[in-house]
């Protein structure tokens, strides 16, 4: 029996902190094809009224679910994954940004479980309703 069959609501199944730098943003821009300059140019970020250069929301969404992969084993178990983007992750040119992910069991039924991801930066939640439904059988 795998670890996926004995889940209790509230269990923390995985957690990690990912350190983002400007290099991370350039790397994600290249890998994803999203070259919106607010993710690498301070002057443009400032011109559109942002507090600084921001991480791509899809980068945050991607690294958040990556947290549970080793626990899950096979990413083919993921049936659904959704998030709401609420607060930006501002990536300082010198000190970067630390994004913390805590994955907890939110609900369990006979065939699947809902894993709730708490994703925070500077003690504020940046993704709301970040939920992964995984097949447990």
């Amino acid at each position, binding site marked *: 029996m795998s670890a996926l069959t004995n889940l209790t609501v509230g269990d923390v199944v995985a957690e990690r902190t*990912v350190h983002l730098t400007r290099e*991370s943003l350039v*790397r*994600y821009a*290249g*890998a*994803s*094809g*999203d070259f919106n300059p607010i993710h690498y140019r301070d002057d443009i970020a400032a011109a*559109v009224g942002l507090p600084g250069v921001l991480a791509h*929301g*899809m*980068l945050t*969404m*991607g*690294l958040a*679910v*990556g947290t549970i*992969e*080793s626990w899950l*084993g*096979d*990413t*083919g178990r*993921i*049936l*659904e*994954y*959704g*998030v*709401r*983007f609420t607060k930006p992750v501002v990536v300082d040119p010198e000190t970067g940004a630390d994004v913390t992910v805590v994955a907890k069991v939110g609900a369990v039924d006979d065939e699947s479980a809902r894993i709730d991801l708490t994703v925070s930066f500077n003690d504020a939640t940046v993704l709301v309703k970040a939920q992964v439904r995984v097949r447990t059988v």
Partner: protein
Amino acid sequence: MPVNPELVGRDFAPTAPYLVGREKVREFARAVFADDPQHSDPAAAQALGYADVVAPPTFAIVVTDATLQQLLGEPDSGIVLQNVLHAEQKFRYSRPIVAGDELTARLSVTGIRAMGAAAMVTSESEITDAAGEHVVTATSILLVGEGDQ
């Protein structure tokens, strides 16, 4: 110009096939800090029953980019990229994307809801493989502000 409500139900052509490459999967996995070997090592992916390396779950967004371009490219859409904010994203999977897949996305706009001068636009991209089988549906909710620039 506000968002054109006639986008709902409009017929969009399927996107040109996207061939998923092994190195692209490795590159994307590294970029999203997905360090599990199923994304980089073909032997690890094969041990899980896949033909080649498995793309991380959010890789589907790369394939849906062409549909976003279609939406922005509609001359009467009323949507200007600079005014678009990504509010919500959801994926529903039949199976993960694997290197070697040839994927096509089909866009539909399923809802437009006015919010003052802005609008919430819900778009769905249904991604299918070369055999026509469903792989993943990506649902994006975009908050579209008003403005011509």
